[in-house]
């Protein structure tokens, strides 16, 4: 990446080289240094309710089969046959006990273990020539699960997922743990936009400032009662661990009244009270802040809103999780899921689904206008003028880097991390600072993995240590 040191230094002081939103070299650096290491969302356990269920998802340009094996365990396996490299599974989802490669017929159990090689004896000389034992579709280098959310890291030495998420787990629970049963997620809607992946992540992380302008129309048609400018700036943005988000300030009332205000029925509120810590309840009940949009570094976002879905004044909340899957410097595949508490009443699930479709996703009325902006921005960022331009991403900071408004104290906001009321680009800066930290570190150099390499003097010297030891253990 050209002038890397300058780019990162500028980003860290809140001055954003405009070309980072459409620059092939920057994208290569992101692939090499960021997406090779950070935890990436691939699926939710509720997408695999039965033994044998699987979905095929990508981590960048790597295809993984995410499956639930016969014992109920979750696996993520690189979708490449160990023989000639054919994609073993070409469906996007289904239920299977085995995957058989269509090329030469090697087959694998749904936990990845190889079980069938046609003419194993005649072609390879049997176990003497190719030991099947211990061979399996390559597992994802690292796999982690939180609240049923399945993440993969391409770095075998990745820190544990929960350490990576850090204090953002506190906020993730609002979206994904509203009862003991957790959530079910449906979808994803998938579509491609000619926009850089960072823009969506930054927007959901902290851009309360765009709501009154970009989303004027949805207020005017009575879909949403909240995003009027004066309302939005009363909310806060918070950053904790690897994520941050935005909130709305709700009218005074108890926790229960506030949850009712955004449309949750009493029975759901009771279950939330059982699940959430006193601090999680107090953020809403005592401090009066309701979570809305958020992002987890690098490329997933969440949203919680409460529109009207029929004539009348009633509102109904919905939750979405989405991934900004990078395709190139100027293209992103959006995968957007609807999220709902498993124990929610059927009628609630139905109307919450309707609320989601009206607001977000491929046809959502909020999202339509967002994408228009992001595509336009990306397009403009690709030119040579953009290379000269340092955009001002310093909202909320004075020239001496002191904040325009002081962060909320523990008495005002009991959630972890740092929170500021009003408009500011604190969270976008947090996100981009993480980005800069990753881009600064050299790429990890994972060991090569040899498929059934010839053994020298009984040593499996050419195998990776892990595979070798597991083979020995099984032998």
């Amino acid at each position: 990446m050209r002038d890397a040191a300058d780019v990162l230094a500028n980003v860290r002081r809140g001055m954003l080289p405009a070309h980072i939103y459409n620059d092939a070299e920057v994208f290569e650096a992101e692939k090499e240094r960021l997406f090779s290491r950070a935890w990436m969302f691939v699926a939710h356990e509720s997408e695999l309710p039965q033994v044998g269920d699987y979905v095929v998802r990508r981590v960048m340009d790597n295809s993984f089969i995410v499956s639930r094996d016969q014992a109920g365990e979750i696996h993520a396996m690189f979708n490449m046959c160990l023989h000639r490299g054919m994609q073993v599974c070409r469906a996007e989802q289904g239920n299977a006990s085995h995957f058989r490669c269509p090329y030469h017929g090697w087959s694998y159990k749904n936990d990845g273990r190889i079980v069938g090689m046609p003419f194993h004896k005649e072609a390879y000389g049997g176990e003497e020539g190719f030991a099947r034992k211990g061979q399996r579709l390559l597992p994802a280098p690292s796999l982690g699960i939180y609240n049923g959310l399945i993440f993969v890291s391409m770095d075998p030495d990745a820190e544990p997922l929960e350490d990576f998420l850090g204090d953002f787990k506190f906020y993730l629970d609002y979206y994904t743990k509203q009862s003991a049963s957790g959530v079910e997620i449906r979808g994803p809607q998938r579509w491609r936009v000619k926009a850089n992946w960072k823009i969506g992540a930054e927007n959901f992380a902290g851009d309360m400032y765009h709501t009154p302008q970009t989303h004027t129309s949805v207020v005017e048609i009575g879909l949403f009662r909240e995003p009027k400018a004066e309302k939005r700036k009363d909310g806060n943005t918070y950053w904790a661990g690897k994520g941050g988000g935005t909130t709305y300030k709700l009218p005074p009332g108890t926790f229960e009244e506030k949850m009712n205000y955004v449309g949750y029925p009493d029975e759901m509120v009771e279950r939330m009270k059982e699940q959430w810590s006193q601090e999680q309840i107090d953020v809403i009940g005592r401090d009066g802040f309701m979570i809305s949009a958020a992002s987890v570094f690098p490329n997933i976002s969440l949203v919680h809103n409460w529109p009207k879905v029929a004539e009348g004044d009633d509102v109904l909340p919905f939750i979405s999780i989405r991934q900004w899957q990078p395709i190139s410097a100027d293209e992103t595949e959006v995968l957007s899921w609807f999220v709902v508490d498993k124990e929610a009443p059927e009628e609630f699930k139905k109307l919450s689904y309707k609320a989601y479709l009206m607001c977000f996703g491929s046809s959502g009325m909020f999202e339509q206008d967002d994408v228009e902006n992001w595509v336009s921005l990306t397009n403009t960022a690709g030119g040579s003028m953009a290379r000269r331009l340092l955009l001002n991403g310093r909202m909320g900071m004075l020239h001496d880097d002191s904040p325009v408004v002081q962060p909320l104290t523990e008495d005002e906001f009991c959630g972890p991390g740092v929170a500021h009321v009003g408009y500011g680009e604190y969270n976008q800066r947090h996100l981009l600072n993480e980005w800069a930290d990753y881009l600064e570190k050299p790429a990890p150099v994972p060991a090569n993995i040899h498929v059934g390499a010839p053994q020298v003097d009984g040593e499996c010297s050419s195998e990776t240590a892990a595979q070798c030891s597991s083979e020995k253990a099984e032998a």
Partner: protein
Amino acid sequence: MSTYIPIDSASSPLGQAASTTTAVGASLAFDDQRHLTAHRWLVDESYLLDQQDYDAWLDTLAEDIHYFMPIRVTTALGTGYDTAKDMAHFDEDKYSLSRRVARFDTGHAWAEDPPSRLRHHLSNVRTFATENENELVVESAVLLFRSRGDVLEPSLLSVGRVDLLRLEDGAWRLARRHIAADESVLRMQNLAVFL
């Protein structure tokens, strides 16, 4: 063998109240008056959609319309489904469609201001009788061409539609539309359009 898996309103969480009228028999002859009526209706509708005359379009929709475009997924042959469970791109009733139209009328719907240049290329129309004299099932293919601005490549959306048209007070209205997207990943930046 057939790879065709029909879309059913009953598979939608919001489709329970939709009409269940189905086609009866083979497609009608192309010189059958009912086919000519249905075909003309679809052509007229295509012009309304191209011109984004959505208020007029809304008037052609029945009050009980179910406008449903599930997500297509890639599944192995014989899996028995090729749409995502309980999730869609559009799963609309008259109210939600009317909100979408009202939004375009605000003057602040940036997704379509400046407006796209749209062309709904309509073909493969065939009409079926139903058990009810006042209802027809009409199938069609639509290739939507959408061009915005002067830099981006235009985008295309290919879909198959199965519609239920109903004669109400002397006018044919759309009472149900099932839209089969021909892509699992849409190559269109948003669905600020109708199909």
